[in-house]
């Protein structure tokens, strides 16, 4: 498991409008492209140096492709990165359909089985 690598995906895709649009329209292609083009590069800005030992697990990749923020929460992905990118993906269409904050409230409700329990740690 690599919480760090999942967070790196969320961090890099959320700040890139073109990758974000692809993550919305074709998540499998966006995840695959990120793994080949950005995930393997050192840190978050390097264009030359590579990191050889990091990868997503099958479970992490499946959660990212499924836009499954509950699974990401349970894997310990950082709550701020996860919330921010899923607001970017879904807030507008939910708000138009069901009113302001309807996506954020559904998000909370889907995590309600964690109420009163200690959440998974976000520390990598």
């Amino acid at each position, binding site marked *: 498991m690599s919480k*760090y690598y999942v*967070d*790196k995906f969320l*961090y890099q895709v*959320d*700040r890139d*409008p073109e990758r974000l649009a692809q993550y919305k329209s074709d998540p499998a292609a966006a995840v695959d492209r990120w793994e080949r083009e950005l995930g393997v590069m*050192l*840190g*978050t800005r390097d264009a030359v140096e590579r990191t050889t030992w990091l990868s997503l697990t099958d479970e992490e990749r499946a959660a990212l492709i499924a836009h499954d*923020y509950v699974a990401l*929460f349970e894997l310990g992905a*950082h*709550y*701020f*990165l*996860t*919330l*921010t990118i899923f*607001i*970017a993906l879904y807030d507008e269409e939910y708000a138009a359909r069901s009113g302001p*904050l309807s996506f*954020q*409230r559904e*998000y*909370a*409700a889907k*995590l*309600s*089985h*964690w*109420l009163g329990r200690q*959440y998974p*740690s*976000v*520390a*990598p």
Partner: protein
Amino acid sequence: MATLSAVLATTHHPFYLKATELTPPAERIPQAAEWKRKVEAYRETLTAAKPDLLVMVGSDHFHQFFLDNLPTFLIGKQPAYDATFYNEEREFGIPKYTLQGDEDLSGHMFQGLLDRGFDFAISHELKLDHSIICPIITTRPQADLPVVPIYTNIFAPPLPSARRYYDLGRAIRSIIDEYQSEKRIAAIGSGHLSLELGGPRQFGEHGPDPEWDLKAIDWLARGDVDAVLDDVTFEKLSASGNATPGFLDLVLMLGIAGPEKAAYVDDLDLFHTREMYVTWYPNGDPR
């Protein structure tokens, strides 16, 4: 010697501008007018202190910094700072700014912190995020004063102890007090009361722990350092909401003010979170 003319500790609600100005009046939340009134009253507490420059305390929210290289404490030393990232404009509608810096005070602060045992990281290409721009929008919207930005890590655990944030505030205070300058300096820091982001208690009718919020405001209002240091741990803060460790930057501000009663305290219960506005005047109330 420089004069520390005001210390402000405030929550930063990134939707303030959107909720009170960018949204057409008919579509605004019911509290929008009251919220604006409270913010403008709070702004007066800074204006009255007639500051020449601002020491700003905030926390980068994974905008510039990431887990590949994450400073716990960092200071900027630049002639100017760009502000507001693409994804903050997208989500919150916060405009872009360029703030002037003060390299002399940044350098003095950096050296002073090292001398006092705070081994800071430094940046010469720091871009500011909403933890600093939100308080600029609320307390100094003309954005006309030079800033010295100090960033802390408040959301990528493990974090330093509450004592460490308080002591860092005390160190910043002594560095400002010893600074050879005729300038009037205000220190403004932003953080959170109880807050949940990306968890089951997010975006409720109130913050995730309204009782804790009132207790925390009371600690700051009375300058009750002992209660804060007895009661504030990462685990306890997190039990009140996963993003509640953002309160640690308000503990830091209490460190700058010292164990003193605040001169101004206000708050506003909103959906999702409670807003808080506190000001101390370490060298006398100018109002």
